[in-house]
């Protein structure tokens, strides 16, 4: 029933017929609205477990009123649209949280593995180190015993194998990082391609649908961006036309509207076996600026933890190997010859940058002082006049020199050829050492247990005494000529204040010296290296004719192996601050602390993510109880609207019966 003017513009009167149809229309509108709402509720229920689904609700409004003499009459309800319950701010936060959590998770996983490797008693280094030095004490107890010597060789092999195995684990981790980076980059490229595609479709559909949003596609796109964030941290920029632009941490565009730009993996400029992330459109390496996601986590773990762990392990290998070899060279083996190196320790690795000019310089490095080695890498850069060497761990310039050899932190780098200005070299002093250390002397006789000389006193009347002798780094007051080493020597006093040193029969005088009662030192230079065997003569009176002999030590001498065994407690690493065991303890502490922090970081990021997820779910999540209530609500609305039509029909029938009567 509608109140309206009659056809000729006369008095207001009731238009019963149009009133009934309006009632029907209004009822229809209600049925429509309720069925759309029911359908939406049904969609919500169906998608309760769909990842990335945002709860939808019906936007319903009043239809425009119809003006009548009585005022505006309501004409029912209408559907304006289906809205996603969505908060762009929360969504953005969730993406970021995903990137951080994924990166923290990768770092945590990798570090727990690294920790487990180092903690494994069958893999750990400390038992092997203890066994090796313990075996030296065995040789000291019975220097001529072949079984004891064989035990030492075997323990040396166990130690070097332990170094190799540990390094192998670390190296295979590095290789698996390469593989994971490749996989991640492939999935990043696939995801960005799909996102660009969705951007395009969303743009089109939005245009076609007069501004209505394709909710399903938006949900899909958000879910893909979440997955992308699990691989690499990105920032998203929403455009007015509904398209999203995505950028990496360094600002490289990954998706611009309907276009996507790929990442790729390329070999490191120095170490070709190591993969870096590059931006395909310009080929630039962007590893340094990536944070977040699996890629960010892998790169961070590799540079912060893996490299330093390998370097630290390598430093212990070089430290132990070089110190033992050095001591070997100072003693006599069971055949009476100077000891040969027990371990083969590799030289530092030098990589020239791929960008260096040609023909350039070739750099080769040796460890000059294991005690001074750091666990860092170095970059040497030539600027046309000077070499500048920078330590990677703290970016400190350790050396500026116009020409080689470049000596820094226990490493000596020789330069051959002429470098071009701007050429760069990466020097890894200890990275490969733990993997490459080996046992070189496998003959038990080769262990240099004995010191070179035994001091003997002749049938003297004077009171001059002779020391048992020791290794010195500087020459004494009387230094014998090179070549004297290894011969039996006789020191004879020619007067109370002078003596001569001779060898052989008939005696050849090798040196003469003057004697002071306060003490006179005599040194015999070793054939190689700046080391001397030094004996001290002291006491008074000295009597002409008194003599001493220095005879080659026999098989029962254990002085050199005692010095070698003492290396276990010598602080011969890190500038005299650490024993090999300490250095391993330090490595464990570093890796352990990093593991602890990574675990805490991962828990924290997971907590943050859970919180944001809760907030996001509070807005966008489906609650089945709520939907059940809605089902009933809309069902009742539907039933009520249908009832309206029934009422209109009854009215109509009533009117029909009047006319017909």
């Amino acid at each position: 029933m509608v109140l309206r003017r009659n056809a000729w513009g006369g008095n207001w009167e009731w238009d019963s017929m149009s009133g009934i149809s309006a009632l029907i229309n209004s009822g229809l509108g209600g049925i429509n609205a309720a069925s759309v709402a029911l359908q939406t509720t049904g969609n919500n229920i169906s998608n309760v477990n769909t990842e990335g689904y945002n709860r939808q609700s019906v936007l319903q409004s009043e239809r425009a009123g119809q003006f009548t003499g009585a005022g505006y009459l309501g004409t029912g309800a209408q559907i304006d649209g289906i809205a996603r319950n969505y908060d762009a701010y929360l969504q953005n936060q969730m993406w970021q949280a995903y990137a951080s959590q994924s990166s923290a998770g990768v770092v945590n996983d990798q570090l727990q593995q690294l920790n487990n490797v180092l903690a494994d008693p069958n893999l750990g280094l400390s038992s092997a180190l203890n066994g090796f030095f313990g075996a030296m004490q065995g040789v000291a107890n019975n220097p001529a015993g072949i079984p004891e010597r064989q035990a030492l060789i075997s323990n040396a092999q166990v130690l070097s194998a332990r170094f190799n195995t540990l390094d192998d684990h670390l190296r295979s981790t590095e290789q698996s990082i390469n593989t994971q980076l490749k996989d991640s980059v492939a999935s990043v490229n696939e995801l960005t391609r799909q996102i660009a595609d969705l951007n395009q479709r969303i743009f089109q559909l939005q245009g076609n649908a007069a501004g209505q949003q394709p909710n399903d596609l938006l949900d899909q796109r958000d879910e893909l961006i979440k997955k992308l964030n699990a691989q690499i941290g990105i920032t998203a920029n929403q455009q007015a036309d509904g398209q999203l632009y995505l950028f990496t941490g360094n600002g490289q565009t990954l998706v611009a509207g309907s276009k996507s730009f790929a990442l790729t993996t390329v070999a490191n400029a120095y170490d070709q076996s190591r993969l870096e992330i590059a931006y395909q459109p310009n080929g630039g390496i962007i590893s340094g600026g990536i944070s977040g996601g699996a890629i960010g986590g892998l790169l961070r773990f590799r540079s912060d933890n893996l490299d330093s762990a390998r370097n630290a392990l390598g430093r212990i290998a070089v430290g132990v190997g070089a110190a033992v070899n050095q001591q070997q060279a100072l003693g006599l083996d069971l055949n009476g010859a100077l000891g040969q190196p027990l371990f083969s320790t590799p030289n530092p690795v030098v990589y020239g940058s791929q960008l260096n000019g040609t023909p350039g310089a070739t750099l080769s490095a040796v460890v000059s002082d294991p005690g001074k080695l750091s666990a860092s890498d170095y970059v040497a850069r030539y600027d046309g006049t000077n070499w500048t060497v920078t330590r990677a761990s703290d970016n400190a310039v350790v050396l500026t020199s116009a020409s080689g050899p470049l000596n820094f932190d226990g490493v000596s780098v020789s330069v051959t050829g002429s470098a071009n200005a701007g050429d760069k070299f990466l020097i890894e002093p200890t990275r490969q050492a733990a993997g490459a250390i080996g046992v070189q002397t496998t003959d038990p006789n080769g262990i240099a247990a004995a010191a070179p000389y035994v001091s003997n006193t002749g049938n003297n009347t004077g009171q001059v005494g002779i020391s048992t002798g020791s290794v010195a780094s500087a020459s004494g007051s009387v230094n014998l000529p090179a070549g004297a080493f290894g011969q039996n020597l006789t020191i004879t006093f020619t007067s109370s204040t002078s003596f001569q040193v001779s060898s052989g029969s008939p005696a050849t005088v090798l040196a003469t010296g003057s004697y002071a009662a306060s003490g006179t030192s005599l040194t015999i230079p070793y054939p190689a290296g700046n080391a001397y065997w030094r004996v001290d003569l002291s006491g008074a009176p000295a009597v002409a004719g008194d003599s001493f002999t220095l005879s080659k030590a026999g098989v029962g001498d254990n002085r050199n192996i005692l010095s070698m065994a003492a290396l276990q407690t010598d602080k011969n690493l890190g500038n005299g601050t650490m024993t090999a065991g300490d250095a391993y303890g330090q490595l464990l502490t570093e890796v352990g602390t990093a593991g602890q922090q990574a675990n805490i970081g991962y828990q924290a990021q997971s907590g943050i993510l859970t919180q944001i997820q809760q907030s996001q779910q509070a807005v966008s999540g489906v609650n089945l109880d709520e939907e059940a209530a809605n089902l009933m609500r809309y069902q009742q609305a539907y039933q009520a609207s249908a009832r309206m039509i029934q009422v209109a029909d009854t009215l109509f029938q009533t009117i029909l019966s009047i006319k017909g009567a």
Partner: protein
Amino acid sequence: MRISTPQLYSSALDGILKQQQRLSQLNQEMASGRRILSPADDPAGSARVVDLTANIATLDSYDQNASFAVNSLSQESDTLQQVGDLVRQVRTLALQMANGTQNDQTRSNAAAEVGSQLSQLLQLANTRDGNGNYLFAGTVSGTQPFALQSGTPPVSYSGDSGQQALQINATRRIPVADSGQAVFMDIADGNGTFSTAATSGNTGTATIGAGSVLDPQKAATQFTANATTYTITFSSGTTGTSYSVTSGSGASLATVASGTYTPGMSIAIPEAGIQVDFQGDPSNGDTFTVAPSKRQDLFSTLNQLQSALSMPTTSPAQKALFAQQVNHVLTNLDQAENHLLSIQAAAGTRLNESQNTQNANAALRVQFQTVLSSVQDANYPEVITQFNQSQVALEAAQKGFVAIQGLSLFNFLK
């Protein structure tokens, strides 16, 4: 705040998973007995474990070394004891033979006995340790150090003066052997400062004693620094027998003392701060020497006794010479006995030290072990309590999950 249904499930599930993870960790701690399962559990503790384990391993080495030292030193001590006994036997025999009641036959028997004692001594000097190494060879432990040879000295030494030492704790390297040179060869003859001798052509019956030092400082100057040898010459004249003490020869010949001789007197040499006693009557021109003490090996001393016992003793002069020789040997044997005793005492002290160090090492090891255990071992009461707590929490979480999943409005829509 709205809670979404999947969230309700996932947070309940998270709770269960967390408790299970904790239970598994605690279970691992209980099964392994370790608190630190990976360095990340306690980074500082892990480094401490490495350090303590290394310390304990080192102590075990030291302990082994100390046992080895104890063995070596015991063996050396035992051998030196036997050598000392042998020297005392020889000395007793020499004393018997010095007695005038002996005849050629008994002396000849004694000579044979000394010969067998010499070979016993040689055997002792060539003793080997458990590894077959010669105990008294210095560093040349694989080669027999002492061998008979013709000539002087009667036994050659092919070892050296090296001395094996072992590390018995962090700071002490203890010598566990003495070289043959030090034990058998480097024995001072005479009285340790000087030695006296009769010249072989003497015809009188005078014998010279070992002498004694009155002023050690003067004695050291003359015998050690200047290596002065004194000659005491007797001359018989109308006024009786007189003596003069000279040093040097040729242009530097100087008389440092002289006087009248009476048998049994001690002649003093003031310059050297010593006196020597004489018995019997010297003939005119008989000479004796007082020379700086030299080193004489034990084998030579025995050899000297053996040859003295074979000397003819018919004339008074021969008897005097024999007595002189036996006296000389007795002096040298006294020196040898003292020498051996002091070496034995030093070895005994080192033996003692090794044993004490072994005890100290054991005590230290217990200490380290205790600390290690407190750092790395699981505290069972604590872990079991935590395990029970986690178990209760897991059960609660599981009950909660079951309760939550049963709650749905749909259950009431019929």
